[in-house]
């Protein structure tokens, strides 16, 4: 069989080939190292493109000009305004406004004096007390819901503390990281709601998308949102204080039992500044140990206090322990849509420049 062309590989990976052709392609990819590399490359492109496309969903509404310019023209022509007439009208308005302000000025002064005067508690303005209280209740409820999986995971971890089965341990670790992520994500939203309550009701894509992403995590098991893909926003992370995290550095994958790989074989967890905003990015590392291009759509964060790093893409997440010098044990986070908690990702730190 001839080498596979890119179109055929993509068609195969998209499940668009007839069974007999798909079989032949699969067989060839298994036997031919060159084509196997192309397949791996295509897998990366498919995942990368999907992440980029899903980032497009954060779009504003109402930005089309529609008839705004036309409407403006219609008003001018309807009123038959000329620059001279407009200037006259503006002058009249200015004079009228000055008169009104001048007349009201003393009253304003009286009000400012009267305001601090002691009043009975019953006369206190109710809205100023009630308004901040309203968002507090749902926020507290959200904390409780969001932290529940964390508590459950912790108690589960305690229960299986004496268990020696590696598979069970991996599952428990995955659950813990999952819960940490859920809790962190929810706290971020809570911080949002506390600081900017108006954003919660501002509409647009950001609100509902964020809500659904968090909802997907509050039970501890990520669920796909629209189109079977988890959105990136709830797991994108930077360190709270904006400083570089200790987990940044270069790693090499020693073992990854997954069919599709989220991270390259050699990768670096890096920090970049885009327009003054620090971002955590994943870079490929060349065989000679040089930091190379940024992997599209991937982000990472340190799972606080757990000595783990969480790498997130649009549709799945992987976690691994930060290996100490010479160590390499780590665990893999189950992808949301295709649960496989028994899979392991083993990495080791490498030197890079």
């Amino acid at each position, binding site marked *: 069989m001839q080498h596979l062309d890119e179109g055929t590989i*993509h*068609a195969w990976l*998209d499940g668009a080939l007839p069974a007999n052709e798909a079989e032949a392609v699969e067989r060839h990819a298994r036997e031919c190292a060159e084509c196997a590399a192309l397949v791996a490359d295509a897998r990366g492109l498919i995942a990368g*493109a999907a992440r980029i496309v899903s980032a497009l969903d954060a779009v504003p509404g109402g*930005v089309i*000009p529609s008839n705004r310019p036309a409407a403006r023209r219609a008003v001018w022509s309807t009123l038959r305004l000329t620059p001279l007439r407009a200037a006259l009208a503006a002058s009249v308005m200015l004079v009228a406004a000055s008169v009104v302000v001048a007349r009201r000025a003393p009253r304003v002064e009286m009000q400012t004096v009267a305001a601090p005067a002691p009043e009975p508690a019953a006369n206190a303005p109710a809205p100023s007390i009630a308004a901040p209280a309203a968002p507090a209740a749902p926020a507290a409820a959200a904390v409780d819901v969001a932290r529940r999986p964390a508590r459950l995971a912790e108690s589960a971890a305690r229960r299986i503390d004496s268990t020696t089965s590696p598979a069970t341990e991996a599952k428990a670790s995955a659950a813990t990281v999952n819960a940490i992520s859920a809790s962190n994500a929810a706290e971020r939203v809570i911080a949002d709601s506390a600081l900017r309550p108006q954003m919660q009701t501002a509409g647009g894509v950001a609100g509902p998308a964020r809500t659904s992403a968090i909802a997907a995590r509050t039970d501890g098991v990520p669920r796909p949102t629209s189109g079977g893909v988890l959105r990136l926003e709830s797991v994108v992370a930077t360190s709270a204080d904006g400083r570089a995290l200790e987990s940044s550095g270069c790693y090499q994958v020693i073992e990854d039992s997954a069919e599709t790989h989220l991270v390259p074989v050699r990768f670096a967890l890096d920090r970049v500044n885009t327009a003054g905003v620090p971002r955590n990015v994943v870079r490929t590392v060349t065989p000679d140990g040089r930091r190379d291009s940024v992997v599209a759509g991937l982000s990472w964060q340190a799972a606080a206090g757990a000595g783990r790093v969480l790498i997130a893409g649009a549709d799945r997440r992987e976690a691994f322990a930060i290996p100490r010098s010479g160590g390499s044990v780590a665990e893999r986070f189950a992808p949301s849509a295709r649960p496989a908690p028994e899979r392991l990702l083993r990495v080791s730190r490498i030197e890079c420049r």
Partner: protein
Amino acid sequence: MHDVDRLFREYHQPLVRYLTRRLGDRDWAEEVAQETFLRAVKQESIVSERSWLFAVATNLVRDEARKDIRRRRRLEILREQARAEEAVDPEPLGIERAQEAALARRALDALGERDREALLMREEGLDYTEIASALDLSVKSVGTTLARARRRLVEAYESLQAGDAPSGARGTHAAS
């Protein structure tokens, strides 16, 4: 006459998402989707509903895209809005998301129109036959089209992230 309710229930959401990704504006996407469903109501018979709807919506977008003045104004407004967002939004996640969306939009704009449409349709779950039918391509060429589209999209995104202009960028949103 079609079962309009069912058509709407099944295809409105994916169609609007496809159009939103394609156009970068939800309101505009809703407008085009509505027009598409109106045309579906008037249509006597539709063989493949999904590919028909996506094809009509794509053609409507292309018609719209030919109106250069509107397109330029829209881009100006988007640019202004992006600047304003950068200036006033203090929330890191918001900025990050906006930046990612803006990079993704620019990377998508760097693709040829057909590549872009094929890719967005595929991301909405259309199979190769449906994409071929909607874009008037042969089924065999869909794989090549998608491979090219994905590669260019990822390359353009990466080069934008690195601060370069994407190679072969068209710089316009809906250029044909």
